[in-house]
């Protein structure tokens, strides 16, 4: 890696979140405490924002990240072992886009995920035949291979052992960090060759276009848990006094938590599939929850898929962590 490229691929077990300055940690705890009492305090202003240049939301130059992948996987690609590697993708981090760019550059085949009928039928052979894979391949989003219903878990549990045995040849699997935490629960296997991008620090944030003081960047990196995509979305909002990050409604309850966790786990769900995942919630209540969360800016409906808004991700994560949901480690 060159000195100017701060993208780095590391083993997932070595991932470390950026450490927040003590003042920031105290402020965050204080704000969390105030939220318990329903008091919303404005985020403290940055010390000096005159030199702020706001980047385009979520758009950044992915080439240096692709180079980092190339550098890291150089040996693995050159080897003859038909092993599969995993690349963990924290929500909104852009890792899936980077992996697609990389696979395109390497001329690796992009695998089409199974549809819901194929997931239920657990017919792996038939699904794989349709892929017509002759060489190496990329699964760009493993969340599309599982539905958290009684008949939606078996497909991935059948697929993973075959994949790890090398039956499908060499490939890279991009897996959402929340889904990876869930898969480790339903299929408790000690995965090897699991990688991720190192947490973004001030240098990487500057590289993707956020320019501010070192202290401000350190604070931002810690706040967004080293997630470049979230940093790019949160930064311009925090700099604009007229805009605020979305917050969950005060009346958020168990159902709200189930809806948010399900959507986060599957990286977006249609209304119908959400109802299948949460059959105990009446349709009317579910629709009410979805509309309310949309009103509060937490969710958005994109081509009939309900998704978490990028600027609401930190609030959602915080909310689920307060209720002891199984979180990702990123």
């Amino acid at each position, binding site marked *: 890696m060159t000195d100017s490229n701060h993208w780095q691929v590391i083993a997932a077990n070595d991932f470390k979140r950026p450490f927040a300055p003590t003042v920031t940690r105290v402020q965050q705890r204080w704000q969390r405490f105030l939220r*318990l009492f329903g008091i919303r305090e404005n985020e403290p202003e940055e010390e000096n924002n005159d030199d702020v240049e706001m980047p385009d939301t979520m758009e950044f130059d992915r080439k240096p990240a692709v180079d980092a992948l190339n550098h890291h996987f150089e040996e693995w690609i050159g080897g003859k072992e038909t092993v599969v590697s995993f690349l963990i993708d924290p929500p909104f981090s852009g890792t899936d886009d980077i992996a697609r760019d990389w696979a395109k550059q390497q001329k690796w085949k992009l695998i089409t995920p199974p549809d819901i009928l194929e997931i239920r039928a657990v017919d792996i052979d038939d699904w794989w035949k349709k892929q017509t894979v002759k060489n190496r391949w990329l699964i760009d989003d493993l969340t599309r291979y599982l539905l*958290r*219903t*009684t*008949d*939606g*878990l*078996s497909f991935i549990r059948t697929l993973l052992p075959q994949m790890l045995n090398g039956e499908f040849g060499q490939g890279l699997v991009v897996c959402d960090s929340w889904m990876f935490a*869930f898969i480790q*629960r*339903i299929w408790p296997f000690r995965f090897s060759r699991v990688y991720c991008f190192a947490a973004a620090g001030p240098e990487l944030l500057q590289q993707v276009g956020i320019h501010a003081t070192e202290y401000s960047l350190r604070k931002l990196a810690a706040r967004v848990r080293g997630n470049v995509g979230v940093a790019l979305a949160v930064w311009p909002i925090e700099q604009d006094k007229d805009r605020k990050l979305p917050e969950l409604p005060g009346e958020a309850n*168990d159902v709200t938590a*189930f809806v948010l*966790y*399900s959507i986060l786990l599957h990286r977006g769900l249609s209304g119908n599939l959400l109802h299948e*995942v*949460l*059959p*105990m919630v009446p349709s009317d209540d579910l629709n009410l929850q979805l509309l309310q969360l949309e009103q509060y800016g937490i969710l958005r409906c994109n081509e009939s898929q309900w998704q978490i808004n990028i600027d609401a991700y930190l609030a959602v994560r915080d909310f689920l962590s*307060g*209720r*002891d*949901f*199984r979180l990702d480690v990123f």
Partner: protein
Amino acid sequence: MDSEQIIGLFKKITSGTIIEVIVLIVSAIALVWLAEKILRWLAEHLHSGRRLFVLAMIPTIRILIFIIAFVWIVPLLIEPTLQNMIVILGTAGVAVGFALKDYISSLLAGIIAAYELPYRPGDWIEVNGVYGEVKHIGNRVVEIVTADDTTVIIPHLKLWTELIHNANSRDANLMCVVNFYLEQDHDPYQVCRLLENVALSSPYLNLSKPVLVLLEEKPWFTHYRIKAYPMDPRQQFQFISDLTARGKQNLRELPVKFTHLSTYHDTIQKNN
């Protein structure tokens, strides 16, 4: 001991002393009430282990406040010499002990309960066949609320003699058991796999705790049990309902049949 000696044990009590004692007692009661209100309100905004931790502080804080008030009040009324304290407290203890034996026993059990923690607010306990959530631990009684929203008041005295079943002792992990009764002619491995998936797909499931599916052959049916933990003990009944509904819905799609036993079979089963 003549009356003069008894009077000599006490300090000269003025109207100022009486007012001070009243103010102290009222302040202690108000402080306990306020602390309980604040902690309860805070606990309602928290979940799982954090909620139980806050609730568990209530009885301890109450006892601490009362001890401080007692230690403050006694020297206002009695000359605080060792001899005086032994005489007064010993005499009062014997007299009150005889008159209010059960009441004092309950109070003592309450203090021991605060120390040994056989139950804490937020725990789900069963005493004498009554199952419910501990809502309030008073000085003399513990109040539990059953699943049917009935408040049951149990004297701490029961601590000496009864078995106390605590379903989530000292943490937020409460195991739920869901039963299914199937006719015997079927593939048990297929059913076990399905029931495990049933548990894993429930949003109430605490994913950091294990899921266990057990089966037992009975004379007229095969008895399956899912053992799993909800994320919050308060969700236990919804969790059981959810697992039951999901299990029934999915078992109907397998080549298995649910048992239809008469009350006659049920009686024989119980007698066996």
